[in-house]
């Protein structure tokens, strides 16, 4: 199941005084099971791009093929595409609406036409997958839950449809550090254990650096970088020029490498960096 994008262009309000070019010749392929982050300034085209992936925005020019379904085709199977690609918007808890958690989570599968038995299984699995206790929460109102829990219920609503690709638009915005960590751990688990392809839009470079295995940088509607986190943030000056932040651990490692200190590749988290630095003197005592 891959996503192939070729020469994708998109213009808002075409042929009017408000004409704005939002995507400019985007070319890329995302394979099964990848964890991709899309970063860029506000207005760089990130959201326009991800909304193409489940046909919320239809292809104007160029081509986009998701798992063999050509989204340029006006008659393509939209229902199928939307069940393959789950979309989690920013502040998804604002979309909770039902009386109970169970009813909220089953809304998607119900609309997809699953049988009630299938629905019951999917819903329970999804709620447990996001780390909530089914028996405790199923009859609770989603509005009684804490911020982080609400967000997980909203996420469960998408996961219940068993998507193969999960698109998340700033999934950790507004959460405290522990809430952030919970959501990211969950997303990582979905990716590693269930093989779900993850495409995450984020402004938090530290978070992207530690979790994604590929980063796509967008600027003025075009893809300007498409590489690994290590290679991207080694280009410190270019990143700063684009008004993006360099993750703290990358800054630290870049400084050491610039001063001829040899560090292994792929050290990204605090503990990985700590281990690498401690190894420099062959032990923990200096």
């Amino acid at each position: 199941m891959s996503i192939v994008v070729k020469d994708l262009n998109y213009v808002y309000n075409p042929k009017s005084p408000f004409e704005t070019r939002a995507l400019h010749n985007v070319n890329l392929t995302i394979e099964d099971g990848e964890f991709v982050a899309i970063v860029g300034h506000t207005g760089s085209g990130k959201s326009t791009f991800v909304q193409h992936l489940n046909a919320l925005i239809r292809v104007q020019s160029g081509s986009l093929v998701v798992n063999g379904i050509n989204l340029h085709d006006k008659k393509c199977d939209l229902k199928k595409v939307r069940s393959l690609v789950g979309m989690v918007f920013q502040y998804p808890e604002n979309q909770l609406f039902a009386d109970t958690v169970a009813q909220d989570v089953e809304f998607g599968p119900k609309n997809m036409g699953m049988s009630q038995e299938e629905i019951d299984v999917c819903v329970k699995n999804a709620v447990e997958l996001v780390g909530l206790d089914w028996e405790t929460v199923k009859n609770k109102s989603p509005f009684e839950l804490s911020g982080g829990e609400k967000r997980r219920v909203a996420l469960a609503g998408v996961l219940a449809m068993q998507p193969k690709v999960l698109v998340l638009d700033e999934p950790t915005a507004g959460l405290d550090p522990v809430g952030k960590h919970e959501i990211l751990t969950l997303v990582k688990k979905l990716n590693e254990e269930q093989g779900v392809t993850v495409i995450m839009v984020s402004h938090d470079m530290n978070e992207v650096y530690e979790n994604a295995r590929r980063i796509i940088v967008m600027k003025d509607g075009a893809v300007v970088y498409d590489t690994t986190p290590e290679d991207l943030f080694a280009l410190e000056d270019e990143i700063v020029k684009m008004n993006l932040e360099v993750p703290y651990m990358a800054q630290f490692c870049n400084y050491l490498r610039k001063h001829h200190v040899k560090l292994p590749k792929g050290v990204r988290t605090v503990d990985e960096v700590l281990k690498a630095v401690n190894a420099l003197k062959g032990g923990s005592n200096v």
Partner: protein
Amino acid sequence: MDIIKLVNATYNYKVFNDDGTQSFAVGVDDVTLDVVQGEFLTLVGHNGSGKSTLAKLLNGLFVPQKGSVSVLGMDTANEKNLFEIRKNVGMVFQNPDNQMVASIIEEDVAFGVENVGIPHPELGERVRWALESVGMEQFAKKTPHKLSGGQKQRIAIAGALAIKPQVLVLDESTAMLDPQGRKEVLSVAKKLNEDFGMTVVLITHFMEEVLQSDRVVVMQRGKIIATGTPSEIFSERQLLENAGLKVPRTIELAQKLKESGWQVEENTADAKALGEMICQLL
């Protein structure tokens, strides 16, 4: 001098249960705190720790159910004081889009000043001064809808500033902004504190934002669990983690390096400076 004094202030929320009974959810629980004139105070805590409830107690939007809150010696429980209290404690909230009241920026900034009864031409001067102070004077005649989140929050700050309050409370005003917008708002807050001696109370859960403050208050489940300078607070890594917070990554690395025996400054927030220290030790 204390500008705001909270003494054993408690504020709980009513919860209506499905079975028709009522219970309480903790907002702020028995909090005693002084906000000192001219300080930059940062209030941190997990989602639901009571930070925003506390903010709303500071200018009488909420009145404590137990204990008291006074601003410049005026009790917020006395309704007659509220006008004077709110003139002195300006507040900016989280969502930039919910705080715009007019379709032209200078009119938006003038809204509060007009309501406190400032006549022309002082009204115009204050609006100009407020917009200059947040670096948005060139937008005076424009519409707010096309601004970025950070710019909108600066306009909201200008609106509070034009009333010339003694204290500016930023209630998670950076939470919905991108990194650029957050930087803009923080540097404006820092500037107001340094240049005009304005007392600033910043409420946040971005631990990096704590660094520039004089004093930090940590909240957990409605209570204050720690108070201190940023470095004092950061040295309590375990306490912060138990409270749902985290030390910024660079400081965590510095602390862990020190624990491993490297002679580095343990509260180094600058990753490059930390790199330099390690290079010198090698």
